[in-house]
Each structure stands twice: as structure tokens, then as C-alpha cells.
């Protein structure tokens, strides 16, 4: 360990608050020597964060700065490993379903399906068509909810607060539907190995039709609020541009990859749960 010693700058003949002391390289070097620092002459290490737009406190970026210019940025993603794989080793395959809810609590049913399909492949279980269709319906409802969160909170973060309340209006309606189908608003654990938990209730079917009917008009409202919005454009356009090449090299998938101009949707590329039957 480096022995620490308190050194007053005066010891070195420097009196920093005197006007005539110049901020010269020589003086700074004398200061570094006095403090025992072995720093690069002009580089500074700066911790940016920890912060993250969605879940505060997970991402920290260690920056190497030359004045205002960032020379190097090293992301430190924090200690969020939850050990799901380890837990899975000690559970039966049925006991693990609730854990998959928590992988993405905004779309638990999609994760339920991903896990149950893996087990079904290993055990060679066929899922009935009706259960597959119910899976697709609830997964797509979850997907709409996920997109509503993205649009709403992104707008909120750039200062368009009302957008957030509009999208959450629809999101609440969807939560009510999901609630009546699965019995829970969040962390549903509705998908079972080989099928789903229960039949969709009659009123939920009617509710889904109603929702789909009015949602189209609501999307027009969102367009009106954002698509022509100058602030939305200036805050998002040419910000954090990702090229096709980078997006592929960094293994991005889903909406981000499509946003980079690559037509790749896993539901079309490798259809599961009967997605090949639908036109979307």
C-alpha cells in the first residue's frame, strides 16, 4: 500500500491562492510530485454516473478526459447478476416458470413462453393450436404494452409529459385485460409447459376487440403529438446513430436492429407458436 502523507502545498514553496502564482506546467508538476501522483500530464479520470435512463443506478462509465474531450470510455455495468441460472439448477422445471416473469417484468408472458418452449423442445411436447393462439394473443398484448412504455417514457424524458399519460391510459386498459385473462396484472406466470393456465374468459375476448378498435385512433393521437413535434425530432434525430454494421457486430436484435435498417424479426425468421399463420 502507498504510504499516505499529508503535504501542504506551502512546503513546496507554492501558495496557490496568490494571484501571481501561474497555472504553469512547472507548478502543476511540482504539485503532482509533492502529492506523489503519477498521473498523465493532462488526463483526468472521471466517473460518469452511476445512472441509467430507466433503472437508476446501474451503469457507470469511467471516462478518460483530456480537458473537455473524452479519450476513452469504459462502461461498468454494475452488479445486477441475479443468478437465475443457478437457481434453475436447484428447481424443478415447473417451479422455474415464476422466475422467468422477473427477467423482464414489462413482458413476463413473452419470457414465460420462451422458457416453456425450451422445455417443450427438450421433452418433445406438442402444444395444442388453441393454446398457441392464446399465447400469441397475450404476447402481442404485452408487446404493445412494452412499446407504449417506450414511447411514453422517452417523451417524458425529453419533457413531453402529457404523452406519458396518454400512453399509460392505454397501458392500464391492457393491464385490466391481462388481469382478467391471467388473474394478475404483473408477473403473471400464465404460460404452462405444454399450454396455458386457463381459457380466455368471454369478457376478455370482447375487451380485446374493443381495445383493438379504439387503439388505432389512439395511435393517430400519438402521431399527432410526436411525429411532427420539433422537440421530438431535434432530441432524437442524429442522436446516437448506429450503423447497420455496428448493430450486427454488437449482436443487437429486435426493434433496435430493425431501427438500423435490417429487416429481421425473429417471429418471421424463425416462426414459433404459430406465428407463420399470421400476417403482420
Amino acid at each position, binding site marked *: *500500500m502507498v504510504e499516505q502523507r499529508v503535504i501542504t502545498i506551502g512546503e513546496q514553496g507554492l501558495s496557490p491562492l496568490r494571484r501571481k502564482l501561474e497555472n504553469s506546467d512547472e507548478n502543476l508538476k511540482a504539485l503532482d510530485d509533492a502529492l506523489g501522483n503519477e498521473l498523465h500530464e493532462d488526463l483526468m479520470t472521471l466517473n460518469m454516473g452511476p445512472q441509467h435512463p430507466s433503472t437508476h443506478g446501474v451503469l457507470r462509465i469511467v471516462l478518460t478526459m483530456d480537458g473537455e474531450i473524452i479519450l476513452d470510455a469504459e462502461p461498468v*455495468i454494475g*452488479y*445486477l*447478476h441475479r*443468478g437465475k*441460472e*443457478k*437457481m434453475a*439448477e*436447484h428447481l424443478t422445471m415447473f417451479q422455474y416458470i415464476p422466475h422467468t416473469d422477473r427477467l423482464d417484468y414489462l413482458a413476463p408472458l413473452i419470457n414465460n413462453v420462451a422458457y416453456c418452449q425450451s422445455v417443450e*423442445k*427438450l421433452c*418433445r411436447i406438442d402444444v395444442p393450436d388453441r393454446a398457441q393462439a392464446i399465447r400469441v394473443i397475450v404476447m402481442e398484448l404485452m408487446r404493445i404494452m412494452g412499446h407504449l412504455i417506450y414511447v411514453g417514457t422517452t417523451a417524458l424524458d425529453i419533457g413531453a409529459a402529457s404523452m406519458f399519460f396518454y400512453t399509460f391510459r392505454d397501458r392500464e386498459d391492457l393491464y385490466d385485460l391481462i388481469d382478467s385473462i391471467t388473474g394478475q396484472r404483473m408477473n403473471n406466470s400464465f404460460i404452462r409447459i405444454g399450454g396455458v393456465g386457463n381459457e380466455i374468459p368471454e369478457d376478455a375476448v370482447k375487451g380485446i376487440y374493443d381495445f383493438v378498435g379504439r387503439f388505432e385512433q389512439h395511435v393517430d393521437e400519438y402521431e399527432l403529438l410526436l411525429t411532427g413535434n420539433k422537440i421530438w425530432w431535434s432530441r432524437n434525430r442524429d442522436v446516437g446513430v448506429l450503423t447497420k454494421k*455496428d448493430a*450486427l*457486430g*454488437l*449482436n*443487437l*436484435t429486435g426493434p433496435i*436492429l430493425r431501427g438500423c435498417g*435490417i429487416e*429481421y424479426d425473429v417471429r*418471421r*425468421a*424463425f416462426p414459433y407458436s404459430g406465428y407463420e399463420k399470421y400476417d403482420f
Partner: protein
Amino acid sequence: MGLSLAALQEKFGTGIQDGNSYLEVMDGVLTAEVPMENLLEILSWLRRDADPRLLLLTCMTATDESLPEESEPDHVALRRGAKARFRVVYHLAGVDSGFQRQLVRIVVWTHEDEAVPSATELWPGANWMEREVFDMFGLSFSGHPDLKRILMPDGFEAHPLRKEYPLRGIHPDQLYRQWDLSRGAE
């Protein structure tokens, strides 16, 4: 046309075997078990020259194929059919060939003392995946630009996804003692 096991064998020799039989998965995904010395060459070919090219490394991870025995924690027995203690698995997807897509699983068997060639040259995104495998399983990757832990703290000593690592973890006092000593704490 798509890729097939026969095409891979023809190009890279008969060391390549069907990996589906080990897990008995019948999901139609081409699974090739390849020898370590050919791994990078094969990955590179699939990424650059194959038809279709597999531009996307959707997943890269490892599995520990040992069976922990509580009575003898030091003894490592392997699962039936396992060829070594660890499997490193690459899932590659072709994204630029219309709607007829290709998914390929490349499997390589390894043990903890053997370094796996790094795929970061081919897919920059492999960087963090390999760091995670290093962190969780203790496998090293040769040619990796910055191989260090990514999810566990730097001073952590164990590799949590190895089978012998206990479910409830190791008490921090035990884990960090060595680290604290190395940093000069009492």
C-alpha cells in the same frame, strides 16, 4: 440452399460431428460439434463466406457438464456422453437472405485449462459475452482484448455458474479475505 452438416464436414474435415444427439434436441437447428483447432476458421467462414452468411451472433455461452458430488467436492464426474467438462456454444443467425433464415449452433468442448480462441475479431459483441463466460465459468479466451470480470466484482474469486458453486453463495468474509489481504487491509 442452406448450410448443412455435410457441407461443413466436406469443407473442414470429419472432425465435425452432429451435436444434436448429445442433448437429443430435435428443433431442426443445425448443430455442429467442432474441434477446438478449427473453431475460429469455421466461425470466420460462417461469418464471411458461407451462403447464407451468418452475420449475427445471437448468443454465446458455456455449460458446465459435470455432476457435483456432495460427498466428494473435489472429484469431478462428467455427465453421460460428455466429452469434456465445458461446452462453449455459439448461436449464429443469418439475417440477409430474405425470409428463408438460417440458424446454426456451433459447439466446442473444452476444459478449464484450455483457452478458447476469441471471436471478438469477427463479432465485436462477442467481447462482453466472452467476459461473461470467463466470469461465470472461469474459461479463458486467447486473443481477447480485455478479458476481465463483467458481472461479479473484480476481487471475486469463484466462478458462480460452475456446478460446485453452492446455491446460496459463499460468505463474503471468506470470499474477500484474499482480496483484502492483497489490497493491504488488516
